[in-house]
């Protein structure tokens, strides 16, 4: 399809794949071969030329090997006030000895679950990177929350990444929750060193009816980290899924988040902040598919872009013909702090039903000068006044994080970045 420079090299990676899930892997490999690595001409990757970036930075397309992670490293990496459970990874490999035994939750390797329907939610034909992961992932984690279980303590997925020569790290998760189950995940990666590496992550979440799943992610990796993630979930009847994604750093980050609303009275919420400086480039592609009547989706992404950073927002809402009485709301607001910062924002609504409430909007602007003057006129230093206003701008998303210790942590990071102390 597209002309590829790296396709052959990735094929090498594909050839190193384990023998399990052979049908799923073969399907994914074929899917990848027909798609190829997206280059600048690919519509879905128009503003994020990941092919070129990989070519420039990934000299060694081979699976990154796990390295030693000590319990001290784990302890010093957990944010203050966190009292939940913990699952630890080294370059994508699960480290059970450093992880919690989570009461009431089954945690095992994907390789131990031979009949798992890998790729049935995050389908390889939808994205070349999902296909590469499915074709070549080494192993992954299966997490299952039983029916009616209310897991009160959040589960922190703590990944340590350090790859030499720009190797490839391919985490894969299958998370399922039985009917009425409630659980919260926090996903955080720690970069060790400044080496470039490529994380290609896939998370498939399968919830039952009336489940309440929350997925919070902090992306604050090294300035040379390249990451693509495909996160997709099926939301069933009366169920709610909420994602909050905080991006603060990275070289090139692409987040594909897809929600399939499959049951009536289901609710999908997608929130995000990208607060970027330097040359960081963060691309959030979200997709919500309303397939049935009486479902609701809410989306709010906010961007603050300084220096030469670049943000991309593409939010697609698809309302099928049967999905009458849909409520779908989408908003993307951006503040550019420098002449060189760039935002490409594209709301996409495709509505086939005729009795729906849908709204979308995007704004791109600078700081409100009148508000800034008002704060200064009360004696507040200009830099701090700017920080205060930007913090208030981001606050609307931050407050969506219900897990307090994590919210406070993100809050602190954002305040530090904005140079405000409140």
């Amino acid at each position: 399809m597209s002309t590829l420079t790296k396709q052959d090299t990735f094929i090498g990676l594909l050839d190193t794949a384990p023998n399990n899930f052979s049908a799923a892997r073969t399907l994914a490999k074929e899917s990848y071969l027909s798609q190829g690595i997206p280059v600048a001409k690919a519509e879905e990757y128009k503003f994020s030329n990941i092919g070129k970036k990989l070519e420039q930075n990934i000299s060694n397309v081979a699976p990154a090997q796990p390295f030693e992670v000590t319990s001290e490293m784990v302890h010093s990496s957990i944010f203050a006030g966190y009292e939940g459970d913990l699952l630890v990874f080294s370059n994508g490999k699960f480290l059970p000895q450093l992880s919690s035994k989570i009461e009431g939750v089954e945690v095992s390797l994907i390789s131990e679950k031979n009949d798992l329907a890998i790729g049935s939610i995050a389908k390889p034909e939808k994205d070349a990177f999902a296909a590469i992961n499915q074709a070549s992932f080494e192993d992954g984690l299966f997490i299952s929350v039983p029916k009616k279980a209310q897991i009160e303590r959040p589960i922190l997925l703590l990944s340590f990444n350090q790859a030499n020569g720009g190797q490839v790290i391919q985490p894969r998760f299958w998370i399922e929750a039985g009917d009425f189950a409630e659980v919260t995940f926090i996903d955080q990666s720690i970069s060790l060193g400044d080496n470039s590496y490529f994380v290609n992550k896939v998370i498939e979440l399968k919830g039952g009816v009336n489940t309440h799943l929350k997925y919070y992610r902090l992306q604050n990796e090294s300035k040379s980290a390249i990451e693509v993630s495909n996160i997709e979930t099926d939301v069933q009847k009366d169920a709610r899924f909420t994602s909050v994604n905080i991006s603060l750093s990275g070289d090139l980050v692409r987040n594909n988040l897809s929600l399939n609303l499959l049951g009536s009275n289901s609710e999908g919420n997608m929130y995000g902040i990208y607060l970027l400086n330097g040359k960081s480039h963060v691309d959030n592609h979200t997709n919500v598919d309303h397939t049935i009547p009486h479902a609701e989706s809410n989306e709010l992404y906010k961007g603050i872009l300084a220096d030469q950073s670049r943000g991309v927002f593409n939010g697609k809402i698809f309302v099928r013909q049967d999905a009458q009485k849909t409520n779908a709301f989408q908003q993307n607001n951006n503040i550019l702090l420098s002449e060189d910062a760039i935002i490409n924002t594209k709301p996409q609504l495709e509505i086939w039903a005729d009795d729906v409430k849908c709204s979308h909007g995007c704004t791109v602007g600078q700081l409100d000068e009148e508000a800034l003057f008002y704060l200064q006129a009360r004696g507040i230093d200009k830099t701090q006044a700017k920080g205060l206003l930007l913090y208030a701008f981001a606050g609307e998303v931050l407050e969506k994080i219900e897990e307090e210790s994590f919210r406070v942590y993100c809050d602190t990071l954002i305040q530090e970045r904005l140079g405000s102390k409140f």
Partner: protein
Amino acid sequence: MLSIKNLHASIEGTEILRGINLEVKAGEVHAIMGPNGSGKSTLASVLAGREEYEVTDGEVIFKGKNLLDLAPEVRAREGVFLAFQYPVEIPGVSSTNFLRTAVNQVREYRGLEALDAVKFLTLMKEKMKLVEIDQKLLSRSLNEGFSGGEKKRNEIFQMAMLDPTLSILDETDSGLDIDALRIVSNGVNQLKSDKNATIVVTHYQRLLDYIVPDYVHVLFKGRIVKSGTKDLALELEEKGYDWIKEEVDSAATV
């Protein structure tokens, strides 16, 4: 305290202030009146440091310092307070956090120790009484969803908290009903002392029944064309501004 000499200021190339001269001493209340578009609000904005205005000539000396050299926040810390004609709504910024930050930055500049949460609250409660402002308002985002009267009361409340030496009230009375006007004026009067001064910018004489000025100046076409006592304000109330305009225009043609 404040000495304005031959002040000229323009916005986007249009000259608004064309040679203002004004002396304000501690303990005094000066009213600046004038028809719409005469430059009253511009004068208030230039004194507070609004960046859109370019000062093209003249000087402003405040407590011995060249005010025009100072950033808006430094002017505030030096003791200049502008009560905004249109207070800005700032969603997401809590009134209390904002004010505590402001008060402590001002205190730090003045060599006073920062107020801790308890002392700050005590001060707040004391000053709230001055303008009969409800604490519920202050737990909300700054000015967000406040009524016109609440916004103006909040301005005077902030003034009380920041303890300025020169307060400039920019059309603080416009849009207020009698009750709100009485409350706001009462607050201003209680804050008056022989150490501070007030400049009241207004279109209407009504406010001056409540805040009684020592001097009244009429601003027209960017200059102070007439000064007098509070009686001048009453005369303006009775006769309107036309006779002033005629006086100025006939003087110009002579």
